């Protein structure tokens, strides 16, 4: 009798345990899941931003996050507000750098990464991206009198690259494949690279060409620097988010599509790139063909 009671109570307990919803279950399509569920429950969106990725994501003079990508992300936040019916959604900003941006997306610390991140297939194993918002490629920043014009001229010289970027991989691969005797110096991110170049620690800085223009305007001596070389890689930028979250992806892409179609994207582009400026320094960066095509092709119909 006692054994039967024990047996029955165990069965009962197990049955009750099965009723407790497990987090790993996929919610039925009508319900929220993933980032949207988290945003709904916490009442805030956490955006990862960069500290000096001019003009995409950086700290302005009031030390607040600002930039082209940040503006696009705030647009996406507006779309999330509509989607979830939460007009009072708050936005929280967290600083990231190339080494921490992917881990912080993966562990739920940030919901959207709004910086200057290249969308490539390897990263898509760990994260997902919204529609492409910029097109660029790896080039070199050098001092005008250095005589360096292409990556091959780096023989016997040193080049700074940021750890964890596509530029690092491309430059390392090129140097190794062609046996160029160049020294690679790792920096935390592109702003530190500018510092290294200006203080003569390195002869060149390798990064996406648009970021290099951004560093020129940040510099106190912009006339001594120039961007040289052919594009060593194809780097389409996109806003990063967690993998397997089509609901969030749809919200983001929907908003971006609207911006592309209505021409508002071009307005935002002009705000930050025509011209690209910090303080007194300006550099005009007209929209390239690659980006124009991307805007046209990605304006998906309703």
């Amino acid at each position: 009798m006692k054994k039967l009671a024990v047996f029955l109570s165990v069965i009962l307990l197990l049955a009750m345990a099965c009723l407790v919803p497990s987090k790993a279950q996929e919610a039925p399509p009508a319900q929220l899941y993933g980032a949207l569920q988290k945003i709904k429950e916490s009442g805030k969106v956490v955006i990862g931003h960069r500290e000096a990725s001019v003009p995409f994501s950086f700290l302005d003079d009031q030390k607040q996050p600002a930039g082209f990508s940040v503006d696009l992300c705030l647009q996406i936040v507006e779309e999330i507000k509509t989607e979830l019916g939460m007009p009072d959604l708050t936005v929280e900003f967290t600083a990231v750098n190339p080494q921490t941006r992917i881990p912080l997306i993966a562990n739920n610390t940030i919901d959207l990464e709004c910086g200057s991140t290249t969308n490539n297939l390897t990263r898509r194993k760990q994260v997902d991206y919204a529609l492409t918002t910029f097109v660029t490629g790896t080039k070199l920043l050098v001092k005008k009198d250095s005589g360096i014009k292409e990556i091959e001229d780096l023989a016997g010289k040193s080049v700074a690259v940021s750890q964890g970027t596509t530029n690092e991989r491309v430059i390392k691969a090129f140097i190794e494949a062609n046996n160029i005797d160049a020294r690679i110096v790792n920096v935390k991110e592109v702003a530190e690279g500018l510092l290294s170049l200006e203080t003569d620690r390195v002869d060149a800085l390798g990064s996406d060409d648009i970021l290099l223009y951004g560093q020129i305007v940040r510099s106190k001596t912009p006339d001594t620097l120039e961007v040289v070389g052919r594009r060593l890689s194809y780097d389409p930028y996109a806003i990063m988010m967690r993998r397997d979250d089509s609901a969030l992806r749809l919200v983001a892409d929907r908003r971006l599509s609207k911006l592309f179609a209505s021409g508002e994207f071009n307005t935002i582009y002009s705000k930050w790139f025509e011209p690209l400026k910090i303080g007194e320094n300006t550099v005009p960066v007209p929209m390239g063909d690659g980006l124009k095509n991307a805007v046209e092709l990605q304006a998906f119909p309703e």
Partner: protein
Amino acid sequence: MRYNWNWSILFEDPYLGWILSGLGLTVLVSSLAWVIALVLGSLVGIARTVPVAWVRTLAGFYVEPFRNIPLLVQMFLWFFVLPEIVPEGMGRWLKRDLPYPEFWTTVIGLGFYTAARVADQVRAGIESVPKGKTQAGLASGLTWTQIYRFILLPLSYRLMLPPLTSEFLIIYKNSSLGLTIGLLELTAQARQIEDYTFQGFEAYITASLLYALITILLLVATQGLERQLRIPGLIQRGT
């Protein structure tokens, strides 16, 4: 949230190489820094006890800044500031021609910081030797140098063994600060593996175990040493 365990990835190339090189750098940096700390720290510590006032004060000027500025800030001073305030030629050499600048900067920064701590231990050790011994030495006609050499130093170092071994362990942990100036030591490698493979738990657990292993090995080694050199009858402070 899901997490897929995959321990085998740590044994694959290049990740295994990364862990080993990280471990190697940690050990190398810590050992070299310890040599600097011991030598410099002893000199300063002894200088703090000599019966010449200006020497003592001067030595004090060394200890105070190095003990009251965080190690992280000190590393940044060595790495970013020093090359800019020395003469142009030396600055250039430091920034470009010095091989592995992150490595040497970490060694120097760690060494000088720990030297200040060692100096305090040495001073405390020397001061804790009963005054009677020094006086006996003076009475017997020994010079101060001889007193230091034959009485004070041998006794005080054996007394100081526990706190000194504690400092050695602390250096190992502080070597992790090298990652802030780009040194790819053990902690940095664990982070890099996490970034590349997403097997963060495996990487971090391995790094933690390796640090714990180093600690245990050092404790065992120094306990043996302590037992050999213990002086019966004099106060022995436990770690």
